[in-house]
């Protein structure tokens, strides 16, 4: 291969479990060119881009990127500063809590840019993208278009040679889309060596690029110059070329024809009047009005986040409008009106049927939920399976079907109950052109033949053209509403897209001149190649980012601190192993002076509280069973007489064994009182002897002279609380990034695993240290537990313990895949060893076998020793260093395991 080749793939394939996502494919791409990657959702586009970006591990084949094999770790490390990857989704790799500038600075630090250099480049990029004015706005509060521009800024901050964009403009309004590509062209003008690889759902975009790759169902349909590929069909369009290659050999389907609508001035099906919906101070839908006639196909055209979905939700009664009115089929929309719901079919944006059920089962379930008569539902389901051509897959789990088929099934479910109105939210997003045409055939039939009113949203211009009328929506407002043709005339565009762009420009008070003129300034010097194995700056960048997010999530912070204090208070007061006022009753079958004298000792003890006496043996059992008493003392008949005769009468103490530890404690008390009583009893016996004790037994309760529970429990509870809260804080750290997508930044940047882990841990460690300080203060001043030992030892031990528990959370986060599993795992894994085997209730020295092992293999017990030792035993570091060392060992082991579990590339 020569130096001018940017990408060279040979025999590259990829599997997810049994699913072959990419079949062996080969292509090459010269440096400095632009290449479009097209294909429907699930075709394998993202997988291919992930492999090229080094984000996914290459399983099969050979892939050369910028002159080296992506398989080699050394080469991948060298590539990080040269490659920029922007994953799919609007702002998925951005941090929503962070401002625009903070986001860019974060990426700049990861790539080792100096402060001055970063500020200079950021200023230039922000000017070019017209984001300057919003520099301090959190990324989460940006529109879709702005998010994508910010994503591009973050990708370009380190001047890459290969820019990989995964559907960067899907769902972005046409004006922002144009601006986006203008910006990319500016960058290319400055860096001619820049190779651009873009996956896109818009064929018009792909047509601008010299090269094109067509993917379908994991197979490379065609690769080559866009011009030549397009020329294979008479229309000269990539759209048709794709369908051609897709069905190579198959018969070309009829082009889609839409018969004109018979306008009959029928009743209005859907009407909205000044509909407004606010979330706090954000207006999602702003005075939207329209009327849709019966049988009409009405389209909502606009970008993601412009209010299309929200308007639809208001119309279906999912959300109440803040102002204005809406009516459906002549009735005001009312969420509680189940009758209207039966006349409407709804299909939401994402596939929301049950993936584990088959197509037929889904239809049957919904037939039940819509209360279709049994006799009616079976033929109806058969009819739909036939009409929607689902017969071949009717009994497969629907979740595994290709997107186009799933959308068809969703539509079948939506029309199952013969609704008069269909509300479809972006029904064809991500579906390939041929399947989209199929879908439209069904819609046309429903509208024209059955008179169903169809209200749908889309961001495809060619679909908007097929609607009877469309309304252009932007930032919560309807900008214009008419037939597509009339709109083109009104705004004077050659195409509907031009018309929309004009319309947007007018709405935004003319194009921003500054933006059109702005150009990217040439960077002063190329970024230094940074190949440090460990960089404190990157670690701090991760830590400060995570810290900012935590500080801005006040609720989470409050829960973490208040939760610890709350638990300290109730456990400090609540956990006590003393048994006092034990409810007991006597069954005195003797009723002699001797028996009364014997029982007197129990009545006088603070450990016992007497309940009414027991009358017979049945009652004894019953009252213990009801748990009304915990102890019954049974004095046998003739107790006094036997005692006097020296016949050793036997007193039975009946205990409630249902709760063994309470029974055990009670037995102890009973025996103690009985023993103390013996001397007195001996005096009542036949030959009163002095029972002077041969030995003075002196029992010294050390460390806690009064055996006050809180002195022992308080410090122990600290160990308990500081096992749960720090672990829960960090447990979602990594898995949440996995679920939300920002984990890609870890895969695609020079950030190492250790930097990532320690950086994530730092802010949570800080919060946990605050927790520790609060808990120590509460023990000392609220519960009055004296701190007899070395505060230094407590501080060191506390730090080591928190290092261990926060790293345990990270470990759980590293090996789970969902947040649910992480939360459940944290609780299940920490609760057993912490509550049962840490020594909080039962001393660790008394544990045996597996229980003892589990206690030793968990950090809580060691900190319990330190906390109890420093508080009650006057110990210092001199005595407690082994425990501190053990805790540091846990920290090292957990971090080591996390390093192994955490992969720098996706599978």
């Amino acid at each position: 291969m020569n130096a001018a080749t940017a990408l060279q793939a040979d025999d590259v394939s990829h599997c997810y479990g049994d699913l072959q996502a990419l079949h062996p494919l080969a292509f090459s791409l010269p440096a400095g060119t632009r290449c479009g990657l097209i294909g429907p959702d699930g075709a394998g586009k993202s997988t291919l881009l992930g492999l090229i970006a080094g984000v996914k591990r290459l399983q099969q084949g050979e892939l050369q990127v910028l002159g080296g094999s992506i398989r080699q770790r050394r080469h991948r490390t060298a590539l990080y500063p040269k490659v920029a990857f922007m994953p799919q989704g609007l702002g998925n790799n951005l941090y929503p809590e962070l401002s625009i500038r903070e986001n860019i600075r974060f990426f700049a630090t990861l790539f080792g840019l100096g402060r001055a250099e970063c500020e200079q480049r950021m200023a230039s990029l922000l000017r070019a993208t017209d984001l300057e004015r919003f520099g301090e706005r959190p990324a989460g509060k940006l529109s879709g278009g702005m998010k994508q521009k910010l994503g591009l800024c973050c990708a370009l901050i380190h001047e890459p040679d290969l820019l990989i964009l995964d559907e960067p403009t899907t769902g972005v309004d046409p004006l922002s889309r144009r601006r986006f590509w203008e910006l990319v062209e500016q960058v290319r003008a400055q860096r001619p060596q820049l190779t651009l690889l873009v996956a896109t759902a818009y064929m018009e975009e792909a047509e601008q690029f010299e090269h094109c790759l067509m993917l379908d169902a994991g197979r490379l349909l065609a690769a080559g110059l866009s011009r030549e590929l397009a020329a294979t069909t008479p229309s000269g369009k990539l759209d048709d070329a794709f369908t051609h290659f897709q069905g190579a050999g198959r018969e070309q389907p009829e082009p889609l024809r839409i018969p004109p609508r018979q306008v009959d001035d029928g009743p209005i099906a859907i009407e909205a009047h000044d509909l407004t919906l606010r979330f706090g101070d954000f207006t999602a839908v702003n005075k939207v009005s329209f009327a849709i006639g019966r049988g009409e196909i009405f389209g909502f055209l606009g970008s993601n986040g412009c209010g299309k979905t929200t308007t639809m939700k208001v119309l279906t009664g999912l959300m109440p409008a803040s102002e204005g009115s809406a009516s459906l089929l002549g009735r005001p929309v009312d969420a509680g009106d189940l009758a209207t719901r039966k006349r409407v079919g709804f299909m939401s944006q994402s596939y929301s049927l049950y993936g584990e059920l088959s197509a037929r089962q889904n239809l049957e379930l919904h037939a039940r939920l819509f209360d279709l008569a049994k006799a009616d539902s079976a033929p109806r389901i058969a009819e739909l399976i036939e009409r929607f051509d689902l017969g071949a897959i009717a009994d497969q789990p629907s979740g595994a079907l290709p997107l186009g088929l799933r959308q068809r099934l969703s539509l079948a479910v939506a029309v199952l109950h013969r609704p008069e109105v269909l509300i479809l939210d972006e029904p064809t997003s991500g579906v390939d052109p041929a399947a989209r045409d199929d879908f439209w055939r069904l819609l046309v039939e429903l509208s024209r033949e059955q008179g169903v009113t169809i209200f749908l949203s889309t961001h495809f211009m060619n679909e908007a053209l097929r609607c009877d009328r469309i309304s252009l929506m932007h930032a919560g407002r309807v900008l214009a509403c008419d037939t597509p043709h009339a709109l083109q005339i009104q705004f004077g565009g050659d195409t509907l897209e031009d018309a929309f762009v004009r319309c947007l420009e007018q709405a935004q008070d003319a194009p921003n001149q500054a933006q059109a003129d702005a150009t990217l300034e040439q960077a002063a010097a190329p970024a230094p190649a940074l190949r440090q194995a460990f960089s404190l700056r990157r670690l701090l960048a991760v830590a400060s980012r995570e810290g900012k997010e935590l500080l801005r999530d006040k609720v989470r912070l409050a829960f973490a601190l208040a939760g610890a204090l709350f638990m300290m208070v109730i456990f400090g007061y609540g956990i006590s192993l003393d048994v006092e006022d034990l409810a007991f009753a006597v069954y005195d079958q003797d009723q002699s002076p001797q028996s009364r004298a014997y029982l007197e000792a129990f009545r006088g003890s603070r450990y016992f509280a007497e309940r009414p006496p027991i009358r017979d043996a049945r009652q004894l059992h019953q009252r213990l069973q009801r748990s009304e008493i915990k102890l019954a003392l049974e004095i046998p008949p003739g107790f006094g007489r036997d005692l006097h005769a020296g016949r050793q009468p036997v007193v039975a103490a009946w205990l409630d064994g249902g709760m063994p530890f309470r029974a055990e404690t009670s037995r102890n008390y009973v025996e103690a009182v009985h023993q103390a009583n013996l001397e007195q009893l001996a005096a009542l016996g036949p030959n009163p002897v002095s029972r002077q004790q041969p030995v003075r037994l002196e029992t010294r309760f050390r460390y806690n002279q009064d055996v006050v529970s809180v002195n022992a429990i308080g410090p122990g509870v600290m160990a308990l609380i500081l096992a749960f809260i720090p672990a829960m804080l960090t447990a979602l750290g990594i898995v949440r990034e996995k679920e939300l997508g920002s984990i890609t930044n870890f895969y695609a940047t020079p950030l190492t695993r250790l930097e990532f882990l320690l950086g994530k841990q730092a802010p949570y460690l800080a919060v946990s240290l605050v927790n520790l300080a609060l808990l120590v203060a509460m023990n000392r001043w609220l519960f009055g537990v004296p701190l007899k030992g070395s505060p230094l030892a407590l501080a060191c031990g506390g730090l080591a313990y928190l290092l261990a528990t926060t790293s345990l959370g990270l470990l759980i986060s590293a090996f789970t895949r969902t947040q649910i599993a992480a939360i459940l795992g944290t609780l299940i894994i920490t609760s057993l060893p912490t509550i049962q085997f840490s020594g909080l209730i039962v001393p660790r020295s008394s544990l045996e076998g597996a229980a003892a092992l589990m206690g030793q293999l968990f950090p809580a017990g060691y900190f319990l020793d330190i906390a109890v030792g420093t508080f009650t035993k006057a110990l210092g570091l001199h005595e407690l260093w082994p425990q501190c060392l053990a805790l540091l060992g846990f920290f090292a082991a957990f971090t080591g395991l996390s390093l192994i579990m955490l992969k720098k590339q996706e599978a």
Partner: protein
Amino acid sequence: MSRLSHTLRLGLKELTSLRHDSVLLLFLLYAFSVAIYMPAAGSVIGVHNASVAVVDEDHGAISRKLAESLQPPEFQPAVALPADRLDQAMDSGQYTFVINVPVNFQADLLAGRSPELQVNVDATAMSQAFMGAGYIGRIFERELLEYAGRSTSSPALLNPKALFNPNLEGGWFLAVIQIVNNITILAIILTGTALLREREHGTLDHLLVLPLTALEIMLAKIASNALVVVACTWISLEVVVKGALGVPLAGSMGLFLGVTALYLFASTALGIFLATLARSTPQFGLLAIPVIIPMLLLSGGSTPLDSMPQWLQWVMQGSPSTHFVSLGAAILFRDAGLSVVWPDVAALAAIGLVFFGVALARFRRSLAA
């Protein structure tokens, strides 16, 4: 009628989803087998295997006899300890009890000079210190009386008998407590996070546009969860508790499972309520800890309810776990019937209804926002 059938249909669907979630099934398996067997098998109640050392400054026959009198299972064999290491050994928590036999102990004893025998107790070992000291005192007294050749016969004997669990096997109760704890964790976390995930992923919308009410959706979630957990509880009681651990469960299994279902109703409703309070999964995780852990620790299953301050006892009456623990002990071990346990059942039902009502109101409101 149609409402009931909707709930049934949706519930069946939830069950099908569960069958496909292998990670979750694995968790269920662990929670109802290993996590119950382990602590119950290694359970320790009262004084068991306590560590003892003897500082013997007398080296007489009697001190050896005393040391040997502390026997398993209550005590580990006593370890001889030099006098100068006493403080350090106790500080490190190595021994819970250290017995100090002074010089000339035997001579003084025989001369009737009542020598002092010191028992040092690590009072931070809460569950053992007090009881163990009493034990040691009684054992030594008996030994010494015997040694002195005095009559050891007491004027009266005490015969402690434990009903419902004659040998006071700690594992019996702990097995049931572990089941209660795992049910609590699963019920609250699973329903709460599942609801948050549906909200974060937007799949709730699909259900809400169907002719279904919030009540039906919630009931379906609760019912299907309850069914699975009740089934797991049953199998676990039969296989792990009765089978592997050999605990004789005296009471009515049917009644206990019914009560379990009622408890699940209350705790899953609590999970939904918590989920409506939190705005994200991390918030929910942190909110769940100070709710779940006290429910586990203060329910009366780990430490006695009677010894808590009165105000806390009242607070804990509001926790469904308190009633469930008390019901578990009553039904399974004391073989108490409904006529005996109905107050706890009524309390559990009332708490469940309150949680459910509040959760439903908040759930409806959170859907609208």
